């Protein structure tokens, strides 16, 4: 029937035009020949396989699916399938290639299984194995394929091969937790391969297999594992395929624990953003990290990961897992593993002996049944030596021990006919003994078997006094010393087995054992009390037992020895102590009542911390970790942390601990934050700085910002209100006598103490500056000065661009203008002033809220007309300020070199400045003349700017002005002092002045005096100007400066006649010279001598000085 059915289906399929329907028909064939009737396979397999040449991809894919299913069902058929598979590899359709790769894991497993199972490898099997391996290599070479879909499947295949090419171990995770692992039965060709979760692995390889070399295969597995690892480090891998690899590695680690360390080392770096390819988008990172987190939790579950728990926990925290989550996970794990984990070897055989699983189950149930005694007695009826063997051993053992408890102390009481007591016991002990139970009880029973067994003997009075050994099974009453000795010994042994516990996967068991041993003082005390109840230790029991202290000391010492590795142990212990050794645990957790902390807990924690203090580096953050993660925080710990803070060596650590406490321990937040705040006002610079750093970090959080801010403002406000004495806070608490003394000066240091925090916050939150300005306005000048000095770095941090600068400008608190001035000043040094700031300052200046000094910093932002307009006000400022302003205007080159200020030379030239100064009108502009003079003098100090050329142009313009500016002649003199090279140019200027009739100008007196002085200074060249004066003016000049007369006369006399002719007669007359008189040539001095002598004669004369009076007598003499 089936045969025809299959033939019919195949016939239909061959006729069918629609590919989908064809596949459907073939699928029915597959079901029939693979699952319903395997014998038909032989007949039809070729027919089905031929469809691999079908033009339609969907049919080809079906054939691959068929091949996969067939090889799974019947590995022995693989040699006939493999050629068709190979063909698919060269298909150019990506879909078919993918389907092939997807088929490969099962094909490879089938080939491996087949090869292992063949005792004598037939040529077909060998060929199949070779071909599958060749195909495997080809496919694995696609691992870097650009098509991510292909890569994904190749990776999954690689994972599969790693599974096959490695050994199963006792710790391999099994999905269905069945009995203990047993070596696989010898594979057989003609049975279906085990399902995938039944391992196909290297354990299958028989020794001396002709084809399979165990070592080579293992190495290949390792290579492929390394390949998977390398993918995680690739920068080009897609997030999907990274997901695949992470999942694969996680599974490999759990099923093949020998890879666990390597897998953990590979996965942990991925927990950070840097560990992932740069190209990953945020969401991809989130997905991969989520996956990683789940898989790390899975790894935690595995016993082989025990020694990496600390590292995994760190990575989990990085990934955002909470400590609670982690601990809950560990707890859950240790709870469940006690049930699930394979029994230790010594226990394992027990269950294997029981053939009646149901009976074992019943026995287990019975053990926990409170109605046990009554059930027991009803069971006794069924007992006799013959059928005892049929009962599960565990039940029998329980029975024996239960019976022993009900036995009387002396044999005499056994005389009563109690067959149900004696008989089963005897039978049971015999059975137990014969089962090889290595228990003390069984041994001693065996020692005297006849005594119990023979009812005749029991009744014999002669034997009455004999003690029955087995009944001494109850623990003997140990002395307190023995208990102590035993406890210590247990403790020491448990400490000593660290390495073997870790490698055997019992690390967590060990740590909880130690914790319990230590943290059950109650039990220990009550035990000791039980032993020696006469001790009146009810009060003393509360105190430390010497033993207890010894144990705690030993534990602390042990932990400190290698603190990083033993951190988990320490936390486990502290948790136990915190829970009061398990006693009040339930109460505390259920009721959530504030049960007082066990005193022992504090003692243990402090002991540990103190020990670590000696051991750890002064900067070791482990201290913080313990303080933060300890189950409960106590005042003693806070004291210790504060002590660390004030200890100069450890203050960094102490403060960061305090910071973390604020963050992570909400109940302590208030007190710790307060402490941190107080430290920010400490007079110890380092402590203050460090605590401020932490506060600034906290300030970023909206939770703490208001508190920190309020404190900072309050301490600044202290500057206003407090007497200088009280400014320096806590530091003076000790020396109370000192406070009685007279208030000392508020020092720079005091101001810094109070403002440091606020300044630090202000750098983060600029708007605080407004608050500060208000407070500043009220402080005394004594405070303001140091503040202005110290605030400079803050201003630089705030910068020109901050909106707070403008806000402050728009509403300057009364009294805070110096602050604003300083701010503008500092900002202008760093960057050109922004338009908005310039506009704001100008506006304030125009409305007369700000005086001219505020303009100085923003001069760079003003244009030429504005500068010219404000120049008089700038000149009127106190000398230091006005010099600063002028310096900025003309000495701009200084700023341009640093690339910051481009001013002066672009907007207004130095000569313009000089000219503008000359145009300042003392009356009109309300500036004193000396101020203007000082300003010009100041400009002259810039010798590199006011060069000869610049000065010449300035002088030229001055002389051409009408009216001539008041200070022109003075400037001329000054210019001559600076640049003697201007001499001849100046003489031409003097000549021009003569032409312009300087004596008739607006300021005749001052200018004339200056003119005469000039002539004197510039002699003898200036004489030509003098002689071109009208006689009246010459007369006045010579009267004003009589010292000129003689040299001038001599000069004129010495002139050659043709020149002398040009001098008008009235002038000659003024000089007292007859027009015809020839000059005495011998007298003619050289011009150089004249000039030199003039310099010596009148080097220091000031143009504004009144004309010198000394020449008067000389004039009379002439």
């Amino acid at each position, binding site marked *: 029937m089936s045969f025809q059915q299959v033939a019919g289906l195949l016939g239909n399929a061959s006729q069918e035009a629609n590919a989908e329907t064809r596949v459907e028909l073939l699928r029915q064939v597959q079901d029939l020949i693979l699952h319903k009737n395997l014998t038909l396979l032989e007949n039809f397999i070729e027919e089905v396989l031929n469809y691999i040449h079908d033009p339609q991809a969907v049919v080809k894919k079906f054939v691959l699916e068929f091949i996969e299913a067939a090889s799974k069902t019947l590995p022995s058929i693989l040699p006939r399938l493999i050629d068709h598979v190979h063909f698919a590899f060269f298909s150019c359709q990506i879909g078919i290639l993918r389907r092939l790769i*997807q088929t490969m894991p099962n094909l490879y497993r089938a080939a491996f299984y087949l090869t292992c199972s063949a005792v004598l490898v037939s040529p077909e099997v060998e060929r199949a194995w070779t071909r599958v391996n060749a195909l495997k290599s080809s496919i694995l070479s696609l691992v870097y394929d650009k098509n991510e879909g292909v890569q994904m499947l190749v990776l999954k295949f690689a994972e599969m091969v790693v599974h096959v090419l490695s050994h199963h171990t006792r710790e391999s995770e099994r999905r269905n937790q069945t009995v203990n692992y047993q070596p696989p039965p010898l594979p057989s060709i003609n049975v279906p391969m085990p*399902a995938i979760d039944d391992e196909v692995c290297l354990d299958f390889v028989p020794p001396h297999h002709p084809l399979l070399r165990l070592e080579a295969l293992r190495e290949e597995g390792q290579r492929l594992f390394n390949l998977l690892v390398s993918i995680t480090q690739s920068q080009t891998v897609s997030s*999907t395929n990274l997901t695949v690899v992470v999942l694969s590695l996680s599974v490999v680690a759990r099923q093949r624990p020998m890879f666990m360390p390597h897998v953990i080392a590979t996965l942990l770096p991925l927990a950070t953003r840097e560990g992932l390819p740069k190209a990953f988008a945020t969401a991809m990172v989130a997905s991969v990290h989520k996956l990683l987190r789940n898989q790390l939790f899975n790894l935690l579950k595995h016993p082989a990961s025990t020694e990496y728990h600390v590292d995994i926990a760190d990575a989990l925290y990085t990934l955002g897992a909470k400590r609670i989550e982690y601990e809950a996970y560990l707890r859950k794990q240790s709870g469940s593993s006690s049930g699930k984990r394979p029994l230790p070897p010594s226990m394992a055989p027990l269950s294997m002996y029981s053939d009646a699983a149901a009976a074992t189950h019943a026995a287990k149930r019975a053990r926990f049944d409170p109605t046990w005694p009554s059930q027991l007695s009803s069971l006794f009826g069924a007992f006799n030596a013959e059928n005892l063997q049929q009962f599960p051993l565990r039940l029998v053992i329980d029975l024996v021990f239960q019976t022993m408890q009900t036995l009387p102390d002396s044999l005499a009481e056994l005389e009563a006919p109690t067959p149900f007591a004696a008989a089963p016991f005897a039978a049971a002990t015999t059975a137990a003994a014969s089962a090889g139970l290595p228990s003390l009880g069984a041994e001693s029973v065996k020692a005297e078997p006849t005594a119990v067994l023979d009812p005749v003997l029991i009744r014999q009075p002669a034997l009455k006094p004999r003690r029955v050994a087995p009944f001494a099974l109850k623990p003997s009453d140990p002395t307190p010393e023995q208990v102590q000795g035993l406890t210590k010994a247990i403790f020491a042994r448990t400490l000593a087995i660290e390495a073997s516990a870790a490698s055997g996967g019992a690390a967590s068991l060990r740590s909880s054992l130690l914790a319990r041993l230590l943290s059950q003082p109650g039990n220990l005390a009550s035990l000791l009390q039980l032993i020696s109840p006469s001790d009146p230790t009810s009060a003393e029991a509360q105190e430390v037992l010497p033993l207890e202290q010894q144990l705690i000391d030993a534990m602390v010492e042990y932990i400190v020895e290698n603190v990083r590795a033993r951190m988990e142990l320490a936390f486990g212990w502290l948790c136990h102590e915190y829970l009061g050794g398990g006693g009040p645990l339930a109460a505390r957790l259920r009721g959530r009542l504030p049960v007082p902390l066990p005193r022992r807990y504090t003692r243990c924690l402090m002991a540990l911390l103190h020990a670590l203090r000696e051991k750890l580096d002064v900067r070791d953050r482990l201290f913080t970790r313990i303080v933060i993660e300890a189950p409960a925080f106590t005042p003693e710990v806070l004291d210790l942390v504060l002590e660390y803070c004030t200890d100069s060596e450890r203050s960094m650590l102490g403060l960061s601990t305090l910071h973390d406490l604020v963050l992570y321990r909400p109940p302590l937040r208030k007190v710790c934050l307060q402490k941190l705040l107080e430290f920010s006002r400490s007079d110890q610079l380092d402590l203050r700085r460090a605590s401020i750093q932490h506060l600034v970090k906290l300030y970023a959080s909206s939770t703490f910002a208001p508190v920190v801010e309020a404190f900072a403002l309050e301490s600044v406000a202290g500057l206003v209100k407090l007497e200088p004495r009280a400014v320096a806070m806590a530091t003076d608490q000790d020396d109370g006598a000192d406070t009685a003394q007279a208030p000392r000066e508020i020092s720079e240091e005091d101001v810094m103490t109070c403002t440091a925090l606020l300044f630090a916050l202000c750098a983060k939150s600029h708007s605080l500056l407004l608050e500060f300005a208000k407070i500043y306005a009220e402080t005394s000048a004594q405070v303001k000065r140091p503040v202005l000095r110290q605030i400079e770095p803050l201003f630089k941090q705030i910068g020109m661009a901050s909106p707070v600068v403008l806000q402050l400008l728009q509403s300057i608190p009364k009294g805070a203008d110096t602050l604003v001035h300083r701010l503008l000043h500092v900002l202008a040094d760093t960057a050109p002033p922004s338009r908005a700031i310039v506009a704001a300052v100008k506006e304030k200046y125009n409305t007369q809220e700000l005086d001219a000094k505020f303009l100085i910093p923003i001069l760079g932002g003003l244009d030429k007309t504005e500068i010219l307009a404000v120049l008089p006000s700038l000149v009127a400022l106190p000398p230091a300020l006005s010099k600063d302003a002028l310096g900025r205007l003309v000495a701009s080159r200084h700023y341009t070199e640093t690339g910051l200020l481009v001013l002066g030379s672009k907007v207004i030239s130095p000569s313009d400045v000089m000219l503008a100064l000359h145009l300042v009108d003392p009356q009109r502009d309300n500036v004193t003349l000396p101020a203007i003079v000082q300003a010009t003098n100041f400009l002259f100090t810039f010798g590199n700017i006011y060069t000869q050329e610049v000065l010449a142009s300035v002088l030229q313009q001055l002389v051409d002005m009408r009216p001539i500016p008041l200070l022109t002649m003075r400037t001329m003199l000054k210019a001559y002092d600076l640049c003697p090279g201007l001499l001849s140019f100046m003489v031409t200027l003097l000549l021009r002045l003569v032409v312009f009739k300087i004596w008739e100008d607006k300021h005749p007196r001052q200018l004339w005096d200056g003119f005469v002085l000039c002539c004197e200074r510039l002699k003898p060249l200036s004489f030509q100007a003098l002689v071109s004066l009208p006689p009246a003016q010459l007369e006045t000049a010579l009267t004003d400066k009589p010292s000129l007369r003689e040299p001038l006369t001599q000069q004129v006399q010495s002139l050659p006649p043709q020149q002398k002719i040009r001098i008008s007669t009235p002038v000659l007359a003024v000089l007292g010279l007859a027009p015809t008189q020839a000059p005495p040539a011998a007298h003619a001095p050289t011009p150089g001598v004249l000039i030199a002598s003039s310099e010596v004669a009148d080097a220091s004369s000031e143009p504004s000085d009144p004309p010198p009076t000394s020449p008067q007598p000389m004039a009379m003499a002439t």
Partner: protein
Amino acid sequence: MGRVKYAVICSSNQNRSMEAHALLSKKGFDVCSYGSGNNVKLPGPTPDQPNVYEFNTPYNDIYAELASKDNAFYTGNGILSMLDRNRKIKTAPERFADAKPLFDVIITCEERVFDQVLEVLEARDSRTFRPVHIINIDIKDNHEEATVGAALIFKMCQAFDQADDLEVKIEEVLDEFQRKHARTLLHSIAFY
């Protein structure tokens, strides 16, 4: 590749997954829907008295029971109309852990469901090595959000269908989707 097989999963297979199921089947997608919880929970008279049903309890039965309990109340909060919509799509809510078909893309409606689905898939043995993408998009469990969510899921599925090779394009599609709709998605992969 052939037609993409979708599954949409929420907690109870009532609101969010069914909303999306309705829309996607209307648009002609090959879609199934499931719940990931242990049982089906519907709002009751107070938050602490939910109506709890086994999976596979027909929508029709639930409808009848709730209508008889308090017709006005369950009409008012939209539960009845939701159930009515559901019973026209399929018989009963189904549990994902019992789902037999193999999918190409599974879309979950909240992170917890995403985790549960991954757990279920991981606990199954990999027998066929067929990859399945699991994508989470957070949707709040109310009628309005479910409608918005379904529309988003539809857009995502549309984008998947337009991709010529899902395996290659999926990251690109998801990335674009996230940017366009300002949603954060989770993405993982498992093998059947």
